[in-house]
């Protein structure tokens, strides 16, 4: 476990897309009551470290065991002044328990004796590509919404603050979009679609922040 991972190299996200509210769902969130968006298994930093390690490539149990350990470093005291002797090593039994939890939640899978991630990771350059499309989509939406502004205002006159309606509209439109995308075979045709992915943090921006705070 690398010391610099304290800032989370990856951001884990998950999304449950529900087609329609069903009686056994949590009515506060309109989602299955027993599943939160990001599985609880990610609460534990050790399991996050395992996923981060597997994001670099598939690993055997022994390879994972050799990385799930660390020795802390001070923030501003230099190596010449002080070298830390404290070390933490996770045992094989504990590591196995963590791997079983991650496997149970379909976050990792074991193939030919090697563990690998069972969800996609968006790398930095891929996030940039996605952002280009996101801007394009959003601009088109803005155009459609602006054109419909008069009609929207007229239809929802009873509502005091009209700005709220756009929030509802966007949320409902996204739900509808999922439905249409499924019909058009862009998404798997499954109800309660659950996706988990991790987004590699924007490294450059992050490194700048670390530099500014700790190395000046």
């Amino acid at each position, binding site marked *: 476990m690398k010391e610099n991972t*304290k800032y989370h190299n990856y951001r884990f996200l998950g999304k449950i897309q529900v087609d329609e509210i069903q009686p056994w769902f949590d009515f506060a969130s309109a989602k299955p009551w027993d599943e939160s968006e990001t599985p*609880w298994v990610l609460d*534990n930093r050790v399991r996050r470290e395992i996923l981060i390690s597997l994001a670099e490539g598939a690993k055997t149990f022994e390879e994972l065991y050799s990385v799930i350990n660390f020795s802390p470093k001070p923030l*501003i005291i230099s190596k010449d002044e002080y070298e830390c002797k*404290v070390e*933490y090593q996770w045992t094989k039994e*504990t590591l196995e328990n963590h791997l079983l939890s991650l496997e149970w939640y379909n976050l990792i899978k074991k193939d030919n004796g090697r563990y690998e991630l069972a969800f996609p990771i968006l790398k930095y350059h891929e996030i940039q590509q996605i952002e280009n499309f996101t801007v394009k989509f959003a601009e088109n939406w803005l155009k459609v919404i602006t054109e419909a502004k008069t009609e929207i205002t007229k239809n929802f006159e009873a509502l005091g603050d009209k700005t709220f309606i756009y929030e509802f509209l966007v949320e409902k439109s996204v739900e509808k979009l999922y439905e249409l995308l499924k019909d058009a075979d862009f998404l798997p045709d499954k109800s309660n679609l659950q996706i988990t992915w991790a987004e590699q943090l924007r490294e450059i921006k992050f490194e700048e922040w670390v530099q500014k*705070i700790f190395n000046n």
Partner: protein
Amino acid sequence: MTNSEYPEDILQSLEDYNIDINDFLPGHGKGAKLLLDFNKIKGIEQIEGVILKGKEIENGIVADVIIKEGTKIEEPIHLCFGVNKESGVQEIFPRIIAENNTEVKVQAHCSFPNANGLIHKMFGHFYIGDNCNFTYSETHYHGENSGALVAPVGYMYIGKNSIFENNFNLTKGTPGKVKILIDIFAMENSIIRSNIKAFGKCKGDSIRIRDSVFLEGHHARSVIKMKAAAKDGGEVLMYGMTEGNAPYCNGHVECSEIVLGKGSICRARPFIRALDATSSVSHEASLGRFPQKWLDELMAKGLSEPEATDILIEAMLQEE
């Protein structure tokens, strides 16, 4: 350094928690100390076996506290993060490394007596080595205007055969908005005791604390005790989490919360998980009013119900 060189109301808030203010001032008392006035380091004092180094950054400080191997000190290391101003942002990045075979107490105090739009954030890391006995006590005072937003995050790693005690106390003044996250990782044969006390006194107070212990080593043991009260529209959420990930580990979460007055909300969310077939994790929680019998006994001595309740709250929050 004399008392007059440091804001008096910050020192006063220390006294309210029965802490000797002289122990915090450099040049007085025997312990190592780091004294902050908003984002300026006002004093720093090292002692043998303890390296203390701080650096000012744009909105706060970065600090290293190193306790060298084998150091055993009776006098606590004092850390004072005071802000006398009404508003502003204070960001603290402390890192404490206690090497193997050390015995030490750290007394931290976060005092914001005039807070009215003040933001205090902390991102702390504690690394406690093997065979240590480490106590970390943190007291908070956020003034009387519910004007602070306090969001500390602490990651604590406790080595083999070590005893770690964490005491967090936010019972004086009006807390404001408080969001605390503590993650403690307990290695082989370590013992963790985490005691959280908080009191939300009015509508502007919202205290949400997540205290988690991850039992990562064989035979690691832990007890989380969370005690809180919410009064006159205050809100308290105590989220005590214990995860048994290693063979023969044992953890317990205990939560007691008292709700008083209309509009007050107390919530508890104990979340326990056993991931090893030989682990054992338990929880208990009680929320609401004090048992009527306790109130009756005090009222029989001539106290009114609110007076009796105040005494019981004080007793509960002072209890070890």
